[in-house]
């Protein structure tokens, strides 16, 4: 076959462009990871050179992207049957599975090694554990085997602020653990709200999300329970070095609204949800994203206030 005849043919594998590879790294998830990691880093108030901070964030972003590529490599069969994910590079035939695996593995090692060199071993160790947790514990093990998949798997998304904190301080502290807890406890109600109105997608893919495995009544109960556990955990950082009165006021408002939303979902049933096409569930899901984002914005505001000496001199602290 001549070169001219080959390039003229429309059949055959489609060669991937640079954008297709970038899409493997889940850029939208990466944005949230970078934001929370940056807040964790700056909230530490430890002296860190901007270049080191930038390099550290880049490593965390690449590590998160690598775990995204590994997730797409493993879950290509699930992705292909779900509406939300059918357009991803592997199910849509733009990137081959082997390429995704290679990119995921190479970038994982690369991100961890470079973070160890740029920052420190603690941060690199946490990043390595996060990638392992997301790719192996969550994607390969929990996701297809238990309705508690996102409860435990949520830890993977909760690590970034802890890694950011470790980049700045070289260690782990109560503040970074509380930032971890905030995302960890927020993840289940967030995804269960999504699962309520995307139930058919998960059923088709055979993923045992809570509404599929235990029904929507149990899911609504769980959302309210987790919102109740989340509220104190989200307010607690107000009484640490990363919090203050602004955080406390904001967190109180946000958690009252979150609890109100969860209460609203708890009072509804399938008939009510189908009647208005899951309006409350969709609104709660949308608000949950804003809820998490604003908590980290509040931490950032407190960091800024401390930097310009506008924090109150006497504020109750946990330790």
């Amino acid at each position, binding site marked *: 076959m001549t*070169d*001219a005849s080959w*390039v*003229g043919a429309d059949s055959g594998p489609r*060669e*991937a*462009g*640079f*954008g297709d*590879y*970038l899409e493997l790294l889940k850029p939208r998830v990466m944005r949230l990871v970078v934001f929370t990691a940056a807040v964790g880093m700056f909230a530490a108030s430890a002296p860190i*050179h901007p*270049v*080191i901070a*930038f*390099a550290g964030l*880049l490593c965390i972003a690449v590590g998160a992207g690598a775990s995204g590529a590994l997730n797409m490599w493993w879950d290509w069969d699930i992705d292909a049957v779900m509406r939300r994910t059918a357009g991803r590079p592997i199910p849509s035939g733009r990137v081959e599975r082997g390429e995704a695996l290679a990119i995921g593995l190479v970038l994982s090692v690369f991100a961890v090694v470079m973070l*160890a*060199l*740029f920052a*420190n*071993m603690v941060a690199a160790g946490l990043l390595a554990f996060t990638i392992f947790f997301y790719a192996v514990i969550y994607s390969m093990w929990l996701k297809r085997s238990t309705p508690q998949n996102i409860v435990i798997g949520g830890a993977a998304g909760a690590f970034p602020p802890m890694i950011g904190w470790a980049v700045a301080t070289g260690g782990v502290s109560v503040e970074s653990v509380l930032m971890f807890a905030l995302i960890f406890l927020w993840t289940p109600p967030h995804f269960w709200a999504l699962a309520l109105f995307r139930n058919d997608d998960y059923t088709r893919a055979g993923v045992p999300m809570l509404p599929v495995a235990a029904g929507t009544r149990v899911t609504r109960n769980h959302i309210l329970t987790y919102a109740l556990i989340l509220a104190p955990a989200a307010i607690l950082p107000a009484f640490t070095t990363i919090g203050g009165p602004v955080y406390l006021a904001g967190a109180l408002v946000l958690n009252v609204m979150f609890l109100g939303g969860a209460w609203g979902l708890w009072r509804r049933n399938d008939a009510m949800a189908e009647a208005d096409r899951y309006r409350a569930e969709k609104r709660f899901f949308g608000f949950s994203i804003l809820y998490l984002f604003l908590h980290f914005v509040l931490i950032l505001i407190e960091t800024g206030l401390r930097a310009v000496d506008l924090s109150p001199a006497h504020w109750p602290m946990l330790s």
Partner: protein
Amino acid sequence: MRPDSHEIYSRRRSRNVGLGLVLGAFVLLVFAVTVVKLTEGQKMEAFDHQYRTSLLPKTEEN
């Protein structure tokens, strides 16, 4: 149809240019971090980022 006008070439070009830019940016990043680490004069061993005790100020014993 010119062989190089096929869309496969534009995708291949985008991949090559993208990878080139990423590698170039990585070189610049390593250079910048190296400059920062050297100018900050950290008293650390580069290979494991541990404090190099011989560079720390001496403290009197007893």
